[in-house]
Structures are given as C-alpha cells and as structure tokens.
C-alpha cells in the first residue's frame, strides 16, 4: 500500500458538523485484478460538503456507486445513515436511495421523457400520495431554483450541456434528499458555466441543508464547494483536510493537484 503524506493536524471537523451519515472503513473494491479501492476510509458528517479529488480512472466514481449500492464492495464497511449498504434488502435500499440524490457525470436524463416527466419520475414513486397539482408545483419550484422554468416541456435532446447538468441537479433534489452525491458535476463545461453550477450546488446545499460528496478533479469547483477534501490516490484516502491545508502540503502527489490553483 502507498505511504500516505504527513501533514499538520488542524481542528476537528467532528465538532463543526452533525453526526456521521457516511462511514467508510477499509473499503475494498476490485474489477478482476484491478484493485480500484484499496482500504479506503472516509467519514462524512451531516451538513458537510466533502470533495473527493483524484486522477481520472482512480476509482472516485466507483466509490459513490458503492455508496448508493450500484456496485457491491468486496471487503470493509460502508455505512450510510448507520446502515451497512451490502446488507440491505432491495426494498430497504430503495428507501435509502430516496434519501440520496445522485447527479451523474453525463446527467443521465431519460431521453424519451420531457424535462417535466424526468423530474416527476421519482416523485410519482416516492411522492407519498402527492396530488398531480402538488407534483407540478414541486417540479416548477425545482426548475425555478435552477433557473430553467421555461424548459419544462423540452426534451433532453434540446438542452445544452449546462442545462442538462442543471436539470440533472433539479431532478436529484426534487425528493429533498439528505445526502447529495455529485459525479464530476462540472466536467465538460466551460469555466463560466462550471462556476455557475458550483455556485448552484452551494446554494442548493444551503437551501435544503444537504450533505454532499462531490467527485471532481476541477480545483475551482473544489475550492468553491468543499468544506473538506479527500485526495484519492491508488485507491486509498491519501490525504484529507481543508483546501487551505492541502494546498500547503509539499508532498508531490498532493501538490500536483494544487500547484496551478494556489489561493
């Protein structure tokens, strides 16, 4: 296993935020001989935004897919809201997923549905007896939040990349989740749109009081959104701290992420 960096210990984040809602300990996940997660550890607390940094293909997306139960891990423990993900039955997993919002890298909007139908999709299944009028109001509220109220009847193919990201975010937030998982939310966007999306993520986090894990290698997005960062290298949590703390580290592997983005 790789030797992690030595760094100064700052104040405890545990005192600033609520209880732990994600507890990952000694997580292992491999695809054949390729060990993607190799004893990975991370804790996320209520109200906290954690950005996981790492090179492309290092296993960041695999991590959040394990968190939401899309992938099964082989060893270790992964507790979300105090429940071990691999031990949940399908119904329990579905109930837990209703408390989690997931924004995909490709936005993953349903091609055959309009924007409105995309947003209604999970509401109709987990809306707990909401009327059609209430569902429509929620959809409109979410679209206004992301500044796309006029796009309600458009098809995904009619949307630009930035609009798709915004709709993806609105769709994930419609069930008012307690935890948001973002898979490279600003990848493929121009710097201005990327900053808009980052600010929107922050605004939504404050409005709905969600916790987040943001998978990214966009340092600008990380600086804007992160309360804490974890640097994933070779499947381990190589270094962890605030943006300021990590940017001061001289270890070449960590420094490589920050060298062009000093505060």
């Amino acid at each position, binding site marked *: 296993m790789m030797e992690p960096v030595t760094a100064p210990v700052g104040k405890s984040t545990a005192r600033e935020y609520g209880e732990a809602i994600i507890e990952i300990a*000694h997580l292992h996940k491999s695809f054949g001989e390729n060990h993607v997660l190799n004893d990975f550890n991370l804790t996320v607390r209520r109200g906290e935004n954690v950005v996981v940094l790492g090179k492309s293909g290092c296993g960041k997306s695999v991590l959040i897919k394990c968190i939401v139960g899309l992938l099964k*891990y082989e*060893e270790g423990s992964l507790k979300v809201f105090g429940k071990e993900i*691999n031990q949940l039955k399908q119904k329990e997993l579905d109930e837990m997923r209703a408390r989690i919002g997931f924004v995909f890298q490709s936005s993953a909007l349903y091609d055959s549905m309009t924007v409105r139908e995309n947003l209604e999709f*999970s509401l109709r299944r*987990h809306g707990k007896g909401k009327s059609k009028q209430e569902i429509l109001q929620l959809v409109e509220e979410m679209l206004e939040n992301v500044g796309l109220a006029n796009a309600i009847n458009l098809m995904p193919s009619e949307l630009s990349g930035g609009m798709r990201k915004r709709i993806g975010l609105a769709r994930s937030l419609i069930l008012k989740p307690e935890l948001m998982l973002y898979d490279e939310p600003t990848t493929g966007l121009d710097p201005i749109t990327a900053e808009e999306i980052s600010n929107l993520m922050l605004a939504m986090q404050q409005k709905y009081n969600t916790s987040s894990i943001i998978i990214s290698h966009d340092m600008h997005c990380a600086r804007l959104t992160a309360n804490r960062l974890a640097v994933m290298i070779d499947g381990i*949590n190589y*270094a962890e701290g*605030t943006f300021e703390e990590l940017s001061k580290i001289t270890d070449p592997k960590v420094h490589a992420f920050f060298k062009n983005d000093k505060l």
Partner: protein
Amino acid sequence: MLMTYNALPLFKFIFMENKSAPTVPAKKRKEPFWLPLLPDGFRDFLTEAGEISRFVTRFFKEVWFPPYEFKEIFRQSYEIGYRSLPLVGLTAFIIGLVLTLQSRPTLARFGAESWLPAMVGISIIREIGPVIVALVCAGKIGSSIGAELGSMKVTEQIDAMEVSGTNPFRYIVVSRILSTTFMIPILVIMGDAIALVGSYLAVKLTGAISLTLFFQEVFESTDFSDFVPAFIKTFFFGFAIGVIGCYKGYNSKKGTEGVGESANSSVVVASLLVFVIDLVAVQITQFFGYL
C-alpha cells in the same frame, strides 16, 4: 482538519485493522467445475444461454408484483405495435402477392388453378405469415430495443433509474417483453389479412374472382388446427424477440460500439430463435396430430 493515515500505521495494523470494521463480502456466483474444460466457443454459448435463462427467470419473478407500469406498457405497445404496422403490412402484402404469382404456373400445369386461394391461404396462415412477420419484427423491434436499452445503459440512464428507487428491470424490461409478447400476435393477424388481400389481387390480375369468393375458398380449406397452433406460436415469437432485445441492451458493453453490437446481436439471435421456436412448434403440433 488535516488527517493522514501514516500517523498510526503500526498501531493500526496490529490493533485496529481487523476490529474497526466488519468485513461484508459481496456474494460471488460459483462457476461449475467442468465449465473451463469445454472448448471456448461452446463454453461461451452455454454461458450466454445460462445468462439468458437467468434473465427470463428474473422476468417471471418480477412480472407478477406491483408496481405495474401500465403507462409504459401502453406506450411500448404503441411503439412496437402501431409503429411497426406499415412495415409489416407492406411486407405481408408483397409476400402474399408474390407467393400467389409464383405458385400459379405450377398449379396451372396440373390443372389445379382453382386450388390457388386454398393453397396460398393455408401457407400464409400456417407458416409464412407468422414467420415473415416475426422476422420483420425481430429486425425492426429487436434492434430498436437492443439499441435503446444499450444507449440507456451507456449514458447511465438505467443507473439513474435505479438510484431514484425505481426498479429499472420492471420499468424497462418487463414492460417491453409484455408489449412484444402481446403485440406480435396482433401484428401477425393483421399481416395475414393483408397478405391474403395481396394474394387476392394477384389472382384477380389473371382471372375473374370476387373478393367474397376468394375468402370463401380460403376459409373453407382451413380449419381450427390451422389457426390455433399458428396463433399460439406467435406469442412465443414475441416473447423471444422482447427477451433477446432487452437482454442484449440491458447487458450492453460501454461505448457506442457496445450499443451497435447490442442492436446487431439482438437481430441475429432473435431471428435465429424465431426459426428454432417455429421448428419446435411444428414438432409439437405434429405430436398432437394437428398436421
């Protein structure tokens, strides 16, 4: 806080490594011991057949339980049934027409021209109608389902559905298989009717016969044993086309190449299965004395 893990390496290794977290292994499926001993091609065939069987088993497990996706089933039925009708109709019309034109000289040689409506009718109802319509549908519907699901897989739409707490298998796969299973028999009935109209026009081209007389001769020469077995097998054709399209798309490999491969192999395997089912259906019909 800046946290690093080398601050407590030896201590952690000795005292905490095995205590801090329970190990929760993911379930792994066991491979039969004899499988690696088989030739590659045969092993791949068996593996694929096994996977398709598991897929079908899952379908039968999921189909009975709510939530029932009626809206999606109707939408798919419209796409699969109504949208395929022009292609099926045109193909059936041409087949009926050509079959009659080609058969006429042979029957005329034996002075049996009057048997033309009966012969063509039996051929179309028993065999040519169901098989041609199923093959056209294997091409049109099989490839469309394979490509659509493959593209949904590649663009993470299936994952998105799953993380939204919806069972994507029930929403996407069950609805499509049910639609193909019930739409293809209807398409076959319509295809048969249109093929007979094509056949009537071919007869009419070369001799005077009324539409009523033509259909009277067709139905007088056919009975229960011609219609029912041919109709029952079309449900199996529809089921096979739906299963293969969904299986190939649902298990598509990543990338655009994977989508193309799913669409292509859906057509090939579904068409092949149509012939296999037809062969088995004929054997069963023969066994019960209906041939």
